[in-house]
């Protein structure tokens, strides 16, 4: 058995064992990097572990991570999101299943302001579960719509995962965002269509609203979406019109949220303090996974592992399309166990050179890679979002939550296949935009 196989099996095998034993991903990655370096090179080979950490500290693009986390935390602490839900609630009106459709739209709008899944899922759950329960919506409809629309938080721009994908591959973040926008919005629309069809076939799942709000009420409720529109526009507008880099766009968005909170009179020292503290602890989690992965990948790559896997994939005598399908399957599978950030850092250096070497469009690959991460994030039994759903309603059994997301997972997998077979679906927007 060659040394590279031993290295691959040893490092990835012990990673899986550690994670199952409840070791934090960051610490497992870092420690396995250290142990492998000691075995291969002895104490003199440990330097890459620390240079890798410094490289990520020094990455300007990563400043966008805490800033997008900040936006999510600030929104969840202010009433901006709650008020926005009222508008979706009133406008979803007397349509059967309307409230679930409105919830999907709300989650997508939230995803366009925040960069990660946890923020959009938890906030959506907090505001949307009580009214849906009050209308006697079926539990499967409630958790399915919240969990699956919430997971699109990392697909609909701004997205922390797309930023890291751009950083690792050197591709334009703006184009990746444009592709993610098409994919994310497309999937949300499919969710909505599914909910409408399902509630038409089985009206008992999601009863229509009893009361009918007047037109005046509806128009007044529109005021509450003014601020979210300003925030979304400040982030995506400044980026898509080439005014700001992704990092700068995230700071513009953060300032816009702060100004909105001040304008609403919700800004207090307590708000500023708690938002800063919570942002720090979430950022610490994300960045330290990257620090751990930096050492792990440096040592694995130094031992010839990356070169070995790339060669192995290139020499597989299969149709390039089949290879892309196999790699996507691997990402989906890993997505059920690992944090999305970990998968990007571990798999993209292995897969991306092969896929782009085969002549596939790099932007397209980035977007479908990210979509697979999204699906993994919600796939039973271990998808992270399932646990966020559980924490929103501890009395609901895990089995109900599993059952609720399965149809939505099916829709996402079908959309992923469509995007893979017809790359134009993803690429028309990125290819028709001018980024400087």
């Amino acid at each position: 058995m060659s040394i590279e196989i031993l290295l691959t099996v040893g490092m990835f095998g012990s990673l899986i064992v550690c994670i199952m034993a409840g070791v934090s991903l960051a610490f497992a990655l870092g420690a396995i990097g250290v142990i492998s370096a000691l075995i291969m090179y002895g104490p003199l080979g440990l330097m890459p572990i620390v240079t890798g950490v410094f490289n990520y500290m020094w990455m300007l693009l990563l400043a966008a991570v805490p800033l997008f986390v900040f936006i999510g935390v600030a929104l969840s602490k202010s009433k901006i999101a709650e008020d926005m839900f009222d508008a979706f609630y009133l406008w979803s009106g007397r349509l059967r299943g309307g409230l679930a459709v409105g919830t999907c739209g709300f989650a997508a709008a939230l995803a366009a302001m925040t960069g990660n899944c946890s923020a959009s899922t938890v906030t959506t759950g907090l505001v949307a579960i009580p009214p849906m329960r009050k209308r006697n919506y079926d539990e499967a409809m409630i958790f399915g719509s919240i969990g699956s629309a919430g997971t699109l938080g990392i697909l609909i721009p701004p997205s922390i995962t797309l930023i890291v994908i751009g950083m690792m591959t050197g591709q334009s973040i703006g184009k990746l965002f444009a592709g993610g926008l098409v994919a994310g919005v497309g999937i949300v629309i499919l969710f909505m269509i599914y909910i409408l069809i399902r509630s038409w076939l089985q009206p008992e799942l999601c009863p229509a609203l009893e009361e009918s709000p007047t037109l005046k009420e509806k128009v007044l409720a529109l005021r509450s979406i003014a601020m979210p529109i300003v925030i979304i526009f400040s982030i995506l507008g400044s980026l898509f019109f080439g005014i700001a880099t992704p990092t700068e766009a995230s700071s513009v968005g953060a300032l816009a949220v702060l100004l909105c909170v001040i304008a609403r009179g919700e800004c207090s020292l307590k708000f500023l303090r708690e938002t800063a503290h919570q942002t720090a602890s979430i950022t610490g989690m994300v960045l330290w996974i990257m620090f751990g992965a930096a050492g792990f990948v440096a040592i694995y790559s130094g031992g010839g592992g990356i070169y070995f896997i790339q060669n192995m994939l290139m020499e597989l005598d299969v149709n390039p399309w089949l290879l892309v399908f196999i790699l996507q399957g691997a990402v989906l599978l890993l997505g059920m166990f690992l944090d999305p950030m970990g998968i990007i850092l571990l798999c993209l250096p292995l897969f991306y050179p092969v896929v782009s070497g085969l002549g596939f469009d790099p932007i397209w690959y980035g977007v479908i890679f990210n979509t697979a991460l999204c699906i993994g994030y919600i796939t039973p039994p271990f998808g992270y979002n399932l646990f966020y759903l559980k924490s929103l309603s501890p009395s609901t059994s895990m089995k109900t939550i599993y059952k609720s997301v399965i149809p939505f997972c099916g829709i996402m997998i079908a959309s992923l296949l469509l995007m893979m077979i017809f790359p134009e679906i993803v690429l028309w927007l990125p290819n028709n935009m001018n980024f400087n």
Partner: protein
Amino acid sequence: MKKILRTIDGVSKWSGETVSYVIYVGILMLVYEVISRYFFQAPTVWAHGYTQRIFGSYFILVGAYTLLLNGHVRVDILYREFPIRIRALFDILNYSLMILWTSVLVKEGITFFLNSWGIRETDEMALAHPIYPIKFILVLGVSLILLQGLSKIAVSCITLIKGEIYEY
């Protein structure tokens, strides 16, 4: 013992909370850069370099605070099912791997900093400002999380021996 543990927790809490406010400085600095470049055609020479310095320090310094709040997420499906002593064993495994990694980071980080200090290393931007202070902050950040890890593993060991969660 309790005094030491409380002091370490206090240091992590204080350092993390203090550093967390830096985000407001970062926001204002980046927005200032956008405005001066886009509206006044006068990009600054310092904003990006100092964004790197500010957020780089932020990333490494909040590690200990995240650990204090148990924010480094773990898969706890198996973990939750076990009695308290077995859970303490899993905790000890978690923290010992963390301590192994971060002690290497401290040791190699010091060499990394000293090499940079030795040549008074600067960055590659127009201003050529020094880079070694950030490498010093790297050593500081990993030392803080190592310290917090030692406190956590001590608590887990006492929990293992006593068979009940150790309060301090």
